[in-house]
């Protein structure tokens, strides 16, 4: 066996704190190493050529590249040696950058550690076996989870690209948060006027199948072949018959239902169509408030409905869809107001959230666009905006910035002045974060042209005094305390992960951070991919995001799906678990521990029961390997022998 070792300087990244020439000299003495060299940038084109030429010239059959993390360039070098005629799994990488040169300053110690690490890789490489991918067919349909602006964009782009799309939205209408906004920054164009046509496109697109008021029940399978169970929640209205005429909503006697669409700004009816532009424009009964459900008698809507669409007996229904890729655009949530007792959140009716204020501003909102105080329906003259209500507050477990509040507060201050010319807005802020195109100019306009008074400081307390709310705060620029008697206070409550985000992530086998936001594959270079192949991210499910960024990600995720589906067959990763049927005793402990459901029971001729791995489902995590009591299940490319060879290489002395 002839091993070639290529040690990369990575400029000064590695060579700065590791003596690479000495490491190469040391490696030449290792039995089995036929060739060892060091090079400035091994990943560069001449660097890769060097490897290819050395393979031919020195007749090498195993290659070790000592450089950066395999997450960075393993694929690069696998392709390199494959071009030179070697099996791609004959490559082994030693990570001497992230694990050594970047973390230690002692050059001597680093060099010794690098030499030992490379020796381990050599030992492993000599044990490497050739592995070959098999290919499998893919189902070119895509599931999009979430019908907000990001999900709709992904669905429309995939649909326009010729793919069949299944779009699942958990609320009764698509549109998401954007459908609730009044105007959008920094252009002040009407949100629903630009979103509405997109919603109609979704409804009318012949490639998009929309499941509204539905949730993901279960997901099985792997990239190219997912089986998705969708729960169609009972609406108690037969949507095939409902025409959206709204008669039921008019006549419903139960007037105090919580209005989820309007975030409780005003009550709605127990049977309702959430908003005039809703897609699908269908009615739905809220059984928590409907008298037929709470008191057992009413039936007004059933009597009044001209098409007989009401069905109080309706049950949830589970449907199954098969898809090959998934775009997750499940959006975000907002922190509860009762987390702010010092602001009277939830106790004082005139302390409201930013999204509730949007509904007050909106012409199709409960007040038809007239700004009034929820307590007494009078027009407020002094409005105080409190930014960072929860955001950047470690004590609430939210150290991050919610991204778009600074901008929407500026917009709401401008709109307040538009609606009520003799009003005065105050904005308490920590910093003004407006790093988008035209954004900073916009926040300046709110201050300079619309007279919003910006006070840099936090609000410490809000208390009612007569009909007013007294807002106490600090002005940290003037070093004084500020007291504003306000009529209405708007809290820019922090963005959180959507309710149920963690449960959905577990169904999808994707990772989420401590806050519940989904984790992308690489923060810069793979922003819409996840570490689970075939699952892509879009919008605020990955982190707080404004509309342009969400739309951008929706399109990006669609592009990724289209690229994935440009082939008819996919290659499977052969570094998966394999069962040695002679050694397997059929205890099936591996089946119980496999987090991916990749292990099946198999009966051999003669009746012996053994475990069997579904190669395409196996993710190569290795849990089964450490579970197996008799070492019968081995992870290809990471077998016990290969790992022990590495251990032996450093434990010789």
């Amino acid at each position, binding site marked *: 066996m002839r091993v070639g070792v290529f040690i990369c300087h990575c400029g000064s990244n590695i060579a700065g704190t590791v003596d690479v020439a000495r490491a190469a000299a040391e490696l030449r003495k290792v039995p089995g190493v036929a060739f060892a060299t060091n090079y400035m940038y091994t990943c560069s084109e001449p660097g890769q050529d060097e490897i290819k030429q050395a393979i031919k010239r020195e007749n090498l059959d195993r290659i070790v590249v000592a450089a950066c993390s395999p997450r960075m360039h393993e694929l690069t070098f696998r392709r390199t040696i494959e071009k030179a005629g070697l099996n791609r799994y004959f490559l082994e990488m030693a990570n001497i950058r992230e694990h050594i040169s970047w973390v230690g300053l002692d050059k001597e110690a680093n060099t010794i550690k690098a030499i030992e690490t490379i020796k381990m890789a050599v030992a492993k490489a000599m044990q490497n076996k050739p592995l070959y991918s098999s290919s499998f067919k893919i189902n070119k349909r895509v599931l999009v989870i979430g019908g907000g602006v990001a999900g709709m964009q992904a669905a429309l782009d995939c649909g326009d690209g010729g793919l069949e799309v299944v779009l699942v939205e958990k609320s009764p209408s698509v549109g998401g948060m954007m459908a609730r906004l009044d105007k959008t920054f920094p252009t002040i164009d009407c949100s629903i006027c630009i979103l509405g046509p997109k919603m109609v496109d979704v409804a009318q697109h012949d490639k998009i199948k929309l499941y509204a008021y539905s949730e993901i029940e279960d997901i099985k399978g792997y990239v190219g072949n997912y089986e998705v169970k969708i729960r169609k929640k009972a609406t108690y209205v037969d949507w095939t018959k409902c025409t959206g005429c709204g008669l039921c909503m008019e006549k419903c006697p139960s007037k105090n239902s919580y209005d989820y669409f309007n975030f409780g700004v005003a009550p709605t009816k127990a049977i309702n169509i959430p908003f005039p532009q809703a897609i699908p424009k269908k009615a739905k009964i809220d059984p928590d408030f409907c008298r037929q459900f709470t008191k057992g008698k009413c039936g007004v809507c059933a009597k009044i409905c001209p098409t007989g669409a009401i069905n109080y007996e309706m049950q949830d229904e589970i449907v199954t869809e098969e898809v090959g890729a998934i775009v997750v655009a499940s959006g975000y949530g907002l922190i509860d107001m009762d987390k702010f*007792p*010092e602001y009277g959140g939830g106790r004082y009716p005139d302390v409201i959230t930013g999204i509730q204020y949007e509904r007050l501003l909106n012409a199709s909102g409960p007040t038809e666009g007239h700004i009034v105080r929820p307590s007494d329906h009078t027009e407020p003259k002094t409005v105080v905006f409190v930014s960072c209500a929860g955001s950047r507050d470690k004590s609430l477990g939210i150290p991050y910035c919610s991204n778009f509040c600074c901008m929407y507060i500026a917009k709401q201050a401008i709109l307040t002045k538009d609606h009520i010319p003799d009003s005065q807005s105050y904005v308490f802020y920590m910093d003004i974060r407006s790093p988008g195109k035209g954004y900073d100019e916009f926040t300046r306009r709110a201050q300079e042209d619309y007279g919003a008074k910006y006070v840099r400081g936090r609000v410490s307390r809000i*208390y*009612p*005094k007569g009909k007013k709310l007294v807002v106490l705060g600090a002005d940290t620029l003037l070093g004084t305390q500020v007291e504003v008697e306000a009529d209405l206070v708007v809290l820019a409550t922090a963005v959180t992960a959507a309710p149920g985000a963690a449960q959905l992530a577990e169904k999808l086998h994707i990772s989420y951070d401590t806050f519940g936001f989904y984790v992308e594959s690489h923060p810069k270079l793979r922003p819409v991919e996840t570490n689970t192949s075939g699952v892509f991210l879009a919008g605020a499910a990955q982190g707080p995001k404004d509309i342009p960024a969400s739309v951008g990600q929706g399109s990006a995720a669609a592009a990724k799906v289209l690229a994935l589906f440009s082939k008819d067959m996919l290659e499977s990763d052969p570094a998966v678990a394999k069962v040695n049927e002679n050694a397997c005793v059929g205890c099936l402990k591996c089946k119980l521990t496999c987090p991916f459901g990749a292990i099946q029971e198999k009966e051999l001729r003669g009746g012996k029961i053994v475990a069997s791995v579904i190669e395409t489902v196996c993710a190569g995590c290795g849990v089964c390997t450490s579970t197996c009591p008799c070492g019968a299940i081995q992870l290809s490319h990471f077998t016990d022998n290969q790992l022990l060879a590495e251990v032996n290489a450093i434990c010789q002395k």
Partner: protein
Amino acid sequence: MAEKEYAYYAGCSLEGTAVEYDMSMRQVFKALGVSIVEPEDWSCCGSTPAHTVDRVFAAALAARNLTIIEKMGTGTVTVPCPSCLSVLKRAHLGMTGDESFRNEVNELLDEPYEGGVVPKSTLQVMLEDVGLDTIASKVTHALPGLVVAPYYGCILTRPPEIAQFDDPENPMSMDKILEAVGVKVADYAFKLECCGAAFGVPKRDMVNRLTYRVLSMALEAGANCIAVACPLCQQNLDLRQGQVNSTMNTSFNLPILYFSQIVGLTYGLSPKELGMDKLVVSADDIVRSRITIEELAQREANAKAAEAEAKAAEKLKKAKVKEEDTKTEET
């Protein structure tokens, strides 16, 4: 409730400026069948002067008392003064949660504190151990016309990790106890707002302003009396009213009572026993307004009867008018 014994750490204020808090608290506990024992040879709790300078020393001052109480074997110590309570609790929690801190503090003590004492405010003992039903059952008198603004002050419920009692931003314990004894409680937004007491010497202007706000917000809420559970709050709000009146051009005359004094009044205890004469702003009107609950019931019944009578008279009048109307029509 079975009689339970508590250690009772009154602290220095309750021997001096807040002696009426001590008197009334002892009377109320007696009425409720809660027996309290004062620890022998108790000393300074370590509040304000010590804890601003040295955390370990302050804890040692507090822990000396905790050691004495621990030996009494009551398990719980009830503390009327929030400042004492905060320091005792801070020492207790610090020493039970952090071994190295405990060793540092015990180093300064003759006998070590083992962590066997639970400090509770008198408010907490009344609410959680005695219970609202028992508190209500002892009521013999009513205070009609009294509307109380319950003022908790800054440290009774905060910081929450030390106080571990009631809502840190909107406490309700005193509200509930006062309501249980039949007193009307105002919806008061300034329950926790700083009264300024701690700055009484160096920044009088500011304190006058802060005190003014606490008082005026109580009036605004419709109260004619403020209930407190803290000697410093009481002293500041009571004693400073004259100063506020002269500097802020106001005419406050708002009695500042300890919650225990109000409870005592409803239990029929004498004003003397409750130390009502120790207050600066006189509470004589409140005392004079006191009637027995039987009298109150009689009064309410009379009022109801009068109302019914008036209604009946009105009905009769209306009927008559109608009758006359029809008569005139007929003619």
